[in-house]
């Protein structure tokens, strides 16, 4: 089972990090898919949740560092949408850490790979403990009858 990660990368500093990682020959899993957008402010809650609906285990929003947005205002929009999407993930019981907002300086290939590997590791840890919990509840089913609460 691969951990599928979708990266929404902005056309500017975010995309340059991924290009640098490729140019430097840095390794990251093939299950990381990248969608290039003009600016992170293009991404909204609907798109982020759609990625999860289609089976992404993690989503990374990769954009320019604060104050370096070429269009001027990505953080105003994306922070709002990021917070909304995180609250909804939490309510859906899907763990909000699956969604991360990463801001990197231009051409930071190493930074991108570190961040994406960190996200994969965290998601895998949570999924493993979730699987263990489900397995546990299957074992005890039929032995004890817990009250519905």
């Amino acid at each position, binding site marked *: 089972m691969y951990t599928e990660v979708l990266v929404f990368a902005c056309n500017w500093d975010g995309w340059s990090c991924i290009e640098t990682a490729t140019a430097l020959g840095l390794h990251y899993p093939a299950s990381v898919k990248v969608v290039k957008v003009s600016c992170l402010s293009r991404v909204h809650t609907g798109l982020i949740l759609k990625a999860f609906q289609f089976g992404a285990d993690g989503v990374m929003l990769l954009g320019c560092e604060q104050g370096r947005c070429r269009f001027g205002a990505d953080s105003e929009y994306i922070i709002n949408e990021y917070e*909304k999407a995180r609250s909804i993930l939490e*309510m859906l019981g899907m763990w909000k850490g699956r969604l991360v907002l990463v801001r990197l300086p231009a051409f930071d290939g190493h930074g991108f790979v570190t961040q994406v590997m960190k996200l994969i590791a965290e998601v895998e840890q949570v999924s493993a403990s979730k699987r263990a919990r489900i397995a546990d509840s299957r074992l005890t089913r039929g032995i004890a009858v817990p009250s519905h609460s």
Partner: protein
Amino acid sequence: MIDLQSVISDTKVRLCLDCGKCTVVCPVARYDPEFNPRRIVQEVLRQNGRGPIDEKIWSCISCSMCVERCNYNVKFTDFIRFLRYMALEKGTEIQYSHGGAPQTIMHIMAQRDIRQKRLNWLPEDIEISKQCDTAFFVGCAPYFDVLFGDLGVKTGEGSKGALRLLNRAQIPFTLVPNERCCGRDLLLLGDIEGFLALAQANMHEFSRRGIKNIITNCPECYYTLKVDYPKFLENWDINVVHITEVIAPLIEKGQFALGRLEQKATYHDPCTLGRYSRIFDQPRSILASVEGLEVVEMADNREKALCCGASPWAYCGAVNKQIQKERLAQAGATGADILVTACPKCHIHLKCAQKNAENNDVCQIEIQDICDLAAKSLLPQEVS
């Protein structure tokens, strides 16, 4: 599973006299001359479903004004729903509003292994019975408040108000932590598969918990659980009531009393509660029992109430905004301080119209949920 001939007989469209009364009363047709319920029906019948499907089917807001007016009660809204289903089968892409977020949430909720944590909004003063066969169906209000928080929408206040009223009336209830969306929006969009997935998940959840009765404050959930679920699910035998159907009789019998509020309010009938479910009097008798609250009616009320202008989170545009503007203007003309509604979706749509107002030409009346208003009329120490 569904074929044109059975839909034609169920919805009685063959009785269409081509008289055009539906089009006269249709709020969408008033602002969009291209939208014409009569023509849609006649075209489909003429071609026996083989021709291209009119794109205008997506403009219908399912307000049921046409069904109300039709001499032979032709169920145009159900017919539209089926045409949408056919269009989706042919691969039509729906133009979602709000980036499709509400529908995506519904589809995620329909997944089997989902374990929601949706009760974080619950205030401490509300008492919930652990073992009880009556459940309160919250609906999507917690999700709406996150999605539409920037409009200043607080539909959760309506749910809290409803729970406080039930507590005060000493009606025991439980909450189902993993209840799904009722699926009405998917059903209205013709996504029957998505709707069924949610409906089955809900039925499974309720039967697992031994739920026999459901109380809800959302008219959309109420109608779907009460009328649509039995049509689609064979084993659905849960009794569904709306919160106003619980509280209003108690007030009339003198077993329950609301408090005092010095305000002037007007009541907006949600389409699903009014025209669909015929609940017109109960909300009004609740409002009438609040001391000091002056209740005035809008120009269009009860069966003729104007819709809030949008329905299943799709195809919202200039026409919908016009309808919302007109409804808010009607509310403003009554001179009321508050527009009271019973539906979280009306609340959101009307708030959205107020927020997007250009040149300040939209009435900025305060919008409140009926349960929120009723609960707030009670004195704080009496609430718990």
